[in-house]
């Protein structure tokens, strides 16, 4: 049923065209529906009805089967929800866990808003993209538009179009059918004999451009993977250039051009109120103190014992012999360069004033580090008190024992 035509209305040589089908106009939505039923019953397959708005009952009249669009949307929604859940779980729990106010890394309730939004977003894309793809849109060339009156289909015209490619199409028979169905006008519509093709150069050009476009992302992906000893390239360099003043440097902001500001008058650093040299430095008039600045009683002694056992015993041993667990292990492992913790009972240490012991705990000595940051001042004094007791206990003479207890001591059988 292909009939070439060379109609040239304006004198110009028009490209060869072929008959693409018939377009019939109807008066009302009802007439269109009735005609559609007739065309359907006549067994046509490649045909369509056109109207400015959706007409109810048209699907039934034409025998259109329900679209699969809702299922596409459903699948897209599920994908969106699953992807959102996975993304939030993997990023916040596995790849980059970080604690916020002690909340769990993964908590479903907190993830629901984003699961919901992504579900809606992907569903909406599917609904929008789906309707275009299923409707084969955009389609910028359609034979029906070659009929002048068809332009009214988007205003107030009702049409039926039957394609020439339909197996049942026969120019006169089909025209008769449409006329008998109540058409007010039936027109032939034409299409160019040859469908316009994309020029080959353009096609290959696009393929090459698409391949070239892959290079930058692949290069970036590679750069991110391989180790590098220089900082990686990055676009936003805010963090590389942080304008700031150096301590003790020159500043432009204040009149005295000093970057470091003097403390506000009468202000005091936290912990800076160390006026009591005896308590804080263990010194009295520049000499090591020999007395305690805290009450010496059983309670302090107990506190000192407890703190000593926690902080000092690991190295110096529970009895202060310099044989704590750390030392034993270091010896067993033959740690190179290990210095044995000093026994607290050597005369040099025993003879030290309490202020000096306090100083050692506070600032450390050679390989022993200071404990100022860990042990509060009063506790350091308590430890000194306990160290003194330890020293007495290991170096006692008979005279140190209360008279009432001496006989019991002397009767003790001496060990071989």
């Amino acid at each position, binding site marked *: 049923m292909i009939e070439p035509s060379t109609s040239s209305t304006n004198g110009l040589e028009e490209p060869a065209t072929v008959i693409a089908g018939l377009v019939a106009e109807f008066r009302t939505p009802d007439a269109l529906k009735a005609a559609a039923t007739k065309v359907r019953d006549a067994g046509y397959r490649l045909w369509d009805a056109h109207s400015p708005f959706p007409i109810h009952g048209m699907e039934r009249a034409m025998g*259109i089967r329900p679209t699969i*669009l809702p299922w596409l949307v459903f699948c897209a929604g599920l994908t969106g929800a699953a992807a959102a859940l996975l993304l939030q779980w993997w990023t*916040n729990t596995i790849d980059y866990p970080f604690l916020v106010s002690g909340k769990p890394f993964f908590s479903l309730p907190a993830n629901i808003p984003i699961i919901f*939004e992504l579900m809606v*977003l992907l569903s909406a894309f599917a*609904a929008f993209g789906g309707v275009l793809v299923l409707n084969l*849109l*955009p389609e910028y060339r359609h034979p029906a538009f070659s009929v002048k009156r068809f332009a009214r*289909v988007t205003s107030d015209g009702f049409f039926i179009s039957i394609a020439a490619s339909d197996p049942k199409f026969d120019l006169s028979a089909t025209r008769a059918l449409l006329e008998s169905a109540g058409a007010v006008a039936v027109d032939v519509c034409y299409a160019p004999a040859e469908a316009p093709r994309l020029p080959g150069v353009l096609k290959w050009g696009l393929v090459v451009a698409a391949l070239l476009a892959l290079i930058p992302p692949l290069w970036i992906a590679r750069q991110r993977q391989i180790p590098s000893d220089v900082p990686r390239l990055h676009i936003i360099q805010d963090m590389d250039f942080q304008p700031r003043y150096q301590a003790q440097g020159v500043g432009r902001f204040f009149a005295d051009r000093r970057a470091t500001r003097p403390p506000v008058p009468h202000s005091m650093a936290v912990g800076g109120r160390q006026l009591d040299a005896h308590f804080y430095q263990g010194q009295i008039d520049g000499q090591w103190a020999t007395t305690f600045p805290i009450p010496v009683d059983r309670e302090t002694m107990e506190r000192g014992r407890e703190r000593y056992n926690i902080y000092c015993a690991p190295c110096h041993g529970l009895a202060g012999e310099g044989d704590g667990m750390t030392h034993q292990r270091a010896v067993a492992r033959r740690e190179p360069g290990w210095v044995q913790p000093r026994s607290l009972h050597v005369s040099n240490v025993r003879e030290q004033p309490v202020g000096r012991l306090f100083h050692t705990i506070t600032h450390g000595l050679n390989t022993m580090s200071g404990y100022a940051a860990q042990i509060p001042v009063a506790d350091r004094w308590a430890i000194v008190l306990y160290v003194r007791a330890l020293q007495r206990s290991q170096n006692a003479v008979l005279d140190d024992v209360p008279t009432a207890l001496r006989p019991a001591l002397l009767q003790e059988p001496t060990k071989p």
Partner: protein
Amino acid sequence: MSSVAFPAFDNTSDDPTVRAPLTTPGQNFQTITETVCRVVERPRPPLGWYIAFAIAVAWTGVFFLLVVYLVSTGIGVWGNNVPVAWAFDIVNFVFWIGIGHAGTLISAILFLFRQKWRTSINRAAEAMTIFAVICAGLFPALHVGRVWVEYWLFPYPNQMGMWPNFRSPLVWDVVAVSTYGTVSLLFWYLGMIPDLATLRDRATGTVRKLLYGLFALGWRGSARQWHRYERAYLLLAALSTPLVLSVHSVVSTDFAVAQLPGWHVTLFPPYFVAGAIFSGFAMVVTLMVPARAFFGLKDLITIRHLENMNKFILATGCMVGYAYALEVFASWYSGNQYEWFAMVNRAVGPYAWCYWTMVFCNVVVPQLFWFKSWRTSPWRMVLVAVLVNVGMWMERFVIIVVSLSRDFLPSSWEIYKPTWVDLGMLAGSFGLFFTLFLLFCRYLPMVAMAEVKAVLPAAHGSGHRH
């Protein structure tokens, strides 16, 4: 042109046995096409359009100049400072995003409820939604300060090895607002395709033919296409309905999840949604009354349409009033001295005038809509609608600024004062909004022709009753 006379035709009857006509009598498919396309096709818009457009564009210019100033100098040019770190920017954000909600309500929720009167106003309302979301999105985007790293908001694999904290309402907000903007745009555009095809088929100039043709995607009203189209439209409506409710709920969690007295209220999500719809409808009324007068759309956008929207304003206004009362109750019932202080501070503190403006505009003024004369008189309803929008802006100011200005530690209390940049950007955002809306009126079909035609009695033929 700008006649204020009460039209002789009256379709505002409340008789439930009579189906009120949705257009003036004598409308057919042809006249609807003519009425709507004429607005776009006339060689020159009315003088009023030029005046309005000039003013709007000038303010848009101010807005973007201020953006340049802000970005190049830093957000210190705003009045925000500790403790009021969220101020005009976030107030404007919540205000604009709320405005958008009425558009989606009209286009999606009323569609699901088969409210046919929506067809005359849904297109313009959806356009309003999109323009409002644009205005809204700009403020938090600028608020972050370093706008050039805006993309950090989104999850993408980066060499910092970091990911957003998805348990934070601020991230929910980014996702919700951008989803809302995208879905609204798709919904709007999908609905417009058949009407763009109408403009394409009537276009005379080459440029118009080309552009309308390009965006109409070759639509030819085929029944097979309509079938899928209607499905897609229904699905998008069904998706937008929970979406619109989620968006302002998520916005409200920006506040409700924080522990600041005055913010930490479980009432917030429904309260915010009701307020959003309230303010959105007020904005639709503000826009539609002059638009239908200037562009000759009174036959399609009738007094009944406006009256219906005013009923929505009345209903949501009462909900908002209820929420205000419940807020007072909740802060008293909490037995928490900070909560109660925050409440008292709103009512009698340094910002008391804001609070009472809010109560007056949002609770008292809408009560006028109990009177039919107010519901049906165009210029009187515009007065109410404008006051409602003033009130709703104040509401966000009261929630955000007033709560922040009095936090837990009295030594850090501070009174917030907007700078001229703050005020300029607020006015400028209105300029941007109206510029976009005026362009829309001039170049796009303001009324959904295909949908209005489908609800005309003639579309259903004989013997078909609903």
